[in-house]
């Protein structure tokens, strides 16, 4: 917002007044020009637009990013409200209901019956009959009776076991896939958030101090980062998990331990480039402490980059966790994460494809949304971006 109009003509000078120096004369120019607050020289209303508002405006124009944002909000709501949602327990094992396919309409009883019937027909077919013999019919009738009568007690309520419905099918222990995916999402997203938060926090502190102080400290810190960077991080995480045991907190910690390096480097670079700018000079000249300069003046100036970085880092963490769970090093039963669900489903994926499909789908949609949002944020926050809208 400069004083230059779009066509480059300097605006007319304001009307002259008698020169009379009063203390008012030293008021800011705008006031002395008698221009009302919120208008320009032509008395047109101006909207005060901060950088953030402008970024937000740019973000809003990016449909993919906004779509991603909505999806992420939706996921967050579902995962947070999991305990009050009307879904089955994610850890209740009902072996009779194992490997049921997804169905929106049929109850577990129908599906179990169909499965049994299909199996018996398959046996009959193999024996060269196209009808069921009496023994098999009795088996089916018995099953029908069990389905109609068997009850179980869950949370103090007696319900008919076979009237349960599984919209996304069940796994090898007859646990509801839908609720496992939702609770798995809780874990996966939490790992994404906690991991990003801790890594960004460590990265900011180390990066900014190292960049600001410079000299030997900077040199040693950065060489340390280089060494850490050279180590295969998955290996470090695996060793860490093996040493300290498989616990979800250890998992958080192990992932954060190896992932602050990037943030530290980025923040250090920013801090170095800002170190000699005028506002830092000004702050220093009025005697601000190093701590104040770093955290009040410099770090806020790196936030744009960090936000972008964080939004792209969350999916990365979810992927790491998925990878570890896939290897059997991540979350342990009865809890689940998207990664562990996918890992469990690999065995038997030809026979029970829904066990692989739905957790993968949930994960892919979330990661896509997160990436779109991250890309959108980068474009919106970086004024120099080529993809600027």
């Amino acid at each position, binding site marked *: 917002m400069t004083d230059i109009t779009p066509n480059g003509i300097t605006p007319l000078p304001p009307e002259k007044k008698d020169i009379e120096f009063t203390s008012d004369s030293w008021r800011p120019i705008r006031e002395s020009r008698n221009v009302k607050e919120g208008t320009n020289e032509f008395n047109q209303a101006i909207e005060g637009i901060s950088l953030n508002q402008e970024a937000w405006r740019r973000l809003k124009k990016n449909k993919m990013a906004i779509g991603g944002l909505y999806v992420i909000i939706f996921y967050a709501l579902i995962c947070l409200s999991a305990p009050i949602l009307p879904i089955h327990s994610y*850890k*209740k*094992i009902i*072996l*009779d209901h*194992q490997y049921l396919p997804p169905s929106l309409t049929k109850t577990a009883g129908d599906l179990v019956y169909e499965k049994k019937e299909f*199996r018996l027909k*398959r*046996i009959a077919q*193999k024996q060269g009959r196209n009808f069921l013999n009496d023994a098999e019919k009795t088996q089916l009738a018995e099953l029908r009776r069990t389905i109609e009568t068997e009850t179980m007690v869950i949370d103090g309520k007696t319900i008919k076991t076979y009237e349960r419905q599984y919209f996304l099918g069940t796994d*090898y*222990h007859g646990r509801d896939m839908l609720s496992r995916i939702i609770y798995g999402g809780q874990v996966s997203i939490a790992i994404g958030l906690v991991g990003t938060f801790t890594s960004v926090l460590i990265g900011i502190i180390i990066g900014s101090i190292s960049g600001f102080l410079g000299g030997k400290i900077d040199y040693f810190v950065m060489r340390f980062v280089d060494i850490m960077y050279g180590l295969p991080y998955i290996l470090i995480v695996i060793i860490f998990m*093996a040493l300290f*045991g*498989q616990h979800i907190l250890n998992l958080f910690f192990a992932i954060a331990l190896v992932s602050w390096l990037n943030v530290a480097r980025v923040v250090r670079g920013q801090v170095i480039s800002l170190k000699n700018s005028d506002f830092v000079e000004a702050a220093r000249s009025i005697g601000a402490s190093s701590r104040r300069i770093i955290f009040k003046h410099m770090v806020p100036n790196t936030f744009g980059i960090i936000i972008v970085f964080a939004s792209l880092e969350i999916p990365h963490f979810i992927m790491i966790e998925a990878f570890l769970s896939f290897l*059997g090093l991540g979350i*342990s*039963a*009865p809890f689940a994460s998207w990664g562990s669900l996918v890992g*469990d489903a690999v*065995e*038997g994926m*030809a*026979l029970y494809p829904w066990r692989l499909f739905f957790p993968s789908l949930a994960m892919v949609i979330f990661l896509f949304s997160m990436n779109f949002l991250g890309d959108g944020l980068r474009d919106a926050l970086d004024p120099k971006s080529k993809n600027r809208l």
Partner: protein
Amino acid sequence: MKKILIAFAIFALALMPFGNAFANKGELIITNGAEPQGLDHAQISGVPEHRIFFSLFEGLISANPKDASPLPGVAESWTVSNGGKTYTFKLRKTTWSDGVPITAKTFVDSWLRLLAPETAARYAWFPAMFIKGAEDYNSKKGMKDVVSIRAIDDYTFQMDLVGPLPYVLGALIHYSFGIAPLHVIDKHGKDWTKPGNFVGNGPFVLEKWEPQKQLSAVPNPKYWDKDNVHLERVVYLPTDDNNTAYNMYLNKESDWATVIPLDQLSEAQLSDDYQSGPYLGTYYYVIQNEKKPFDDPRVRKALSMSINRKHIVEKITRKGESPALSMVPPMAGYTPSLGDAENVEKAKQLLADAGFPGGKGFPEFKILYNTNEAHKKIAEYVQQAWNENLGLKVTLMNQEWKTYLNTRRKGDFTVARAGWIGDYQDPNTFLDMFVSGAGMNGGKYSNSGFDNLIKKAASMEAGPARMAALQEAEKLFITDDQSVIPIYGYTSQNMINMNKWGGWYNNTMDWHPTKDIFMK
């Protein structure tokens, strides 16, 4: 172009009968699991290697394909003396595939080579359990001469055992009691197992070995019983991936699939080719007996009684396993002593008696298992069962195989999954590892009554009295102390078309010597 095609078709047609005729002579193709570690009996330790060993070598004793019982091999006959402690074998006059005679000295030298500490044979501990002095030599406590085996003359071989171990004949089938052609090893060193250098004494002799591709063997013309060898060729295909192996069987690219992937099991079970039978092994959970509160038998019993084993075998493992309440699987002449069957109410009562009504105050503990889908499923089920039935908080921990074995041996666990496959057909192989202080006794079970009974049985000759002693030992171990929680007895799984192949039988060792297999 057309002409070329027609010519090609005629050519192909002309070749076809020959191709079939070749296969018809009986080429047995086996999908054999992992690539063999080697052929030298001092270097191998796996089941795929054992299958190859059966084709290429023969020890003193060979296996009856019907029930895996001992049959004369290189030994023609034998006598037992000194209260069952000394075995004297009369060897038949036979030679290696290069014509060099096999004598009693061959056995002495081969066994000493396997036991020598510098050989570092993985299975040296096995002969060391039987032969007097073998363990001392293997653990560097003595020299060669402490091993009590000797060649009385060229065709008489004698060995002394550590006690009257009536199951030793069955154990002699094992490859660790096999022989190696030392005259060839001296000449070629490590390369002796390469085709061309290879010399064996089994029904077949190595024809070709392309690592990661195939290993084939053709009948050995110098084999003493060559008239009873029927196959034209045996081909072992290394197949690390179970699905690939099974699909090869379905596509008729192999004749005998030794594994069936779990997903394909229910389809496979409908096939006529599906062969399954009890296998001499027990899947169990071992409890750390020294740790509080698991040192209380009531706690261990409560844990055992709150698992529904029938559910596990029917719904989770689904290979036709039998739920087990005893450590020793049923075998001829032995009735296992059972632990308590599932009874959730009584389990709760026992836990309350032990001071933990409703699981209150019971420390959280871990189930350790080696990383594997099937073990994980069972562990998750048991975890949930203990949580729901007894109110216990249980977490799962998996470790990679070698780490897991180490943890288990050290006893650094609370509850761990374990499996034991019998090395020979006798209850002793399932019980003697739980003697106080034994290397495999990671659960630190210690009961002097049990120790004495096992020791007593080891000094008894075969017969009902010995079985009774072992049965009593198992009663202390399982019925009274419930030191471990047996879950199920293993089954063997194979796919082979019995209308095409004969001489193949299900047996509890899952041993199927190729010598006896023939094409119908």
